[in-house]
């Protein structure tokens, strides 16, 4: 069954009319995860863009039709550990336990609880939509923000030229927790994303599953909303978001058939407008090293 048929057969779990921006990658990922998980699920969405857009129903304007919790920024994984344990003891193994968090609630504030839940092998699926910053509060830098990004806490100007550090690569850190399933995906490759959500949900019945999804943000990154998917596609081609999965410790890297350079990727994205040649070379060497490392891991 193709992914289109899967999407045709599933129902909307999140109600329409969410206040996410036009062309939001996060909303696209959230809706796909929710509709594939279905109504027999318990969701957790920590504060961030998607909670702010009202999926938890706090604004009384929209919400979702499955049980959903707005957890704290730092306790999403530990909160869902308890929920998962309760459902296991009640004998309700059929319920999908799904957390959907942004990169701030995953890589920065929520990392301790996430790492703990992964180490304990809690039976849940944790989806991170990585838009490289705290977008809900106006794009502050996070640890997954790329080098040279002009954010509201690292504005490109006379003193600094955007973020001064390289991004932290969370999915490999999670894979090194020896979890049941760990994968990266991009909304530009929807067939792959849908397959990985299904695989992740299946793996969440046996142990901890983690899904890291690249999520372009038109408002924060300053590009036209209709270019969302094109930017995600370019990020995959530039190896900024390599597509791979680690199923029970076995790495599988999706080959990049038409690689492009980082210079081609950053063209047209507002947050990278003031990027210097050295910074582009620096990001390029980071992604090249990352790709080489992933190739080595996948070769074994």
């Amino acid at each position, binding site marked *: 069954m193709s992914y289109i048929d899967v999407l045709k057969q599933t129902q*909307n*779990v999140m109600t329409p009319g969410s206040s996410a921006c036009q062309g939001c990658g996060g909303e696209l990922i959230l809706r796909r995860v929710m509709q594939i998980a279905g109504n027999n699920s318990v969701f957790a969405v920590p504060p961030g863009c998607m909670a702010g857009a009202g999926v938890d129903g706090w604004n009384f304007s929209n919400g979702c039709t499955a049980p959903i919790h707005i957890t704290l920024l730092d306790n999403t994984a530990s909160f869902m550990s308890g929920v998962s344990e309760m459902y296991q003891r009640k004998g309700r193994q059929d319920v999908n336990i799904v957390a959907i968090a942004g990169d701030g609630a995953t890589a920065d504030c929520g990392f301790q609880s996430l790492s703990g839940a992964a180490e304990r092998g809690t039976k849940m699926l944790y989806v991170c939509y990585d838009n490289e910053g705290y977008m809900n509060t106006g794009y502050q830098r996070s640890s997954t923000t790329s080098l040279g990004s002009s954010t509201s806490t690292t504005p490109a100007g006379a003193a600094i030229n955007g973020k001064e550090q390289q991004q932290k690569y969370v999915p490999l850190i999670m894979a090194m927790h020896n979890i049941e399933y760990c994968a990266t995906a991009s909304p530009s490759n929807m067939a792959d994303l849908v397959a990985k959500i299904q695989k992740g949900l299946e793996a969440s019945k046996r142990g901890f599953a983690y899904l890291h999804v690249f999520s372009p943000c038109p408002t924060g990154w300053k590009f036209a909303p209709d270019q969302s998917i094109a930017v995600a596609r370019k990020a995959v081609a530039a190896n900024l978001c390599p597509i791979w999965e680690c199923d029970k410790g076995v790495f599988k890297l999706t080959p990049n058939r038409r690689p492009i350079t980082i210079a081609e990727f950053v063209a047209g994205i507002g947050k990278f407008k003031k990027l210097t040649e050295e910074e582009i070379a620096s990001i390029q060497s980071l992604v090249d090293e990352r790709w080489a490392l992933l190739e080595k891991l996948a070769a074994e």
Partner: protein
Amino acid sequence: MNDTRFVTPLGNDGMYILDTAAWRIVRPVMDKEKCINCGVCMGYCPVNSIYAEGKEIRISYDYCKGCGICAAECPKQAIHMEQEVK
């Protein structure tokens, strides 16, 4: 109330939903002669405004924010964006 595309009843009898259609500046228009009903636009629509009725793919304007992803991603260029007329 009788809208069955969504799981909750909408409107006066059901949930009040934010009218995101009012944000729209341009609206996607599908050219049914070019469209091959592949469903790629449906997969990429962030607000799930594109739906399938049987084999046919259709656009709902109820909540479409007019982002233009469908027009940009259509493999047959069957969708174009038109200025919203008030």
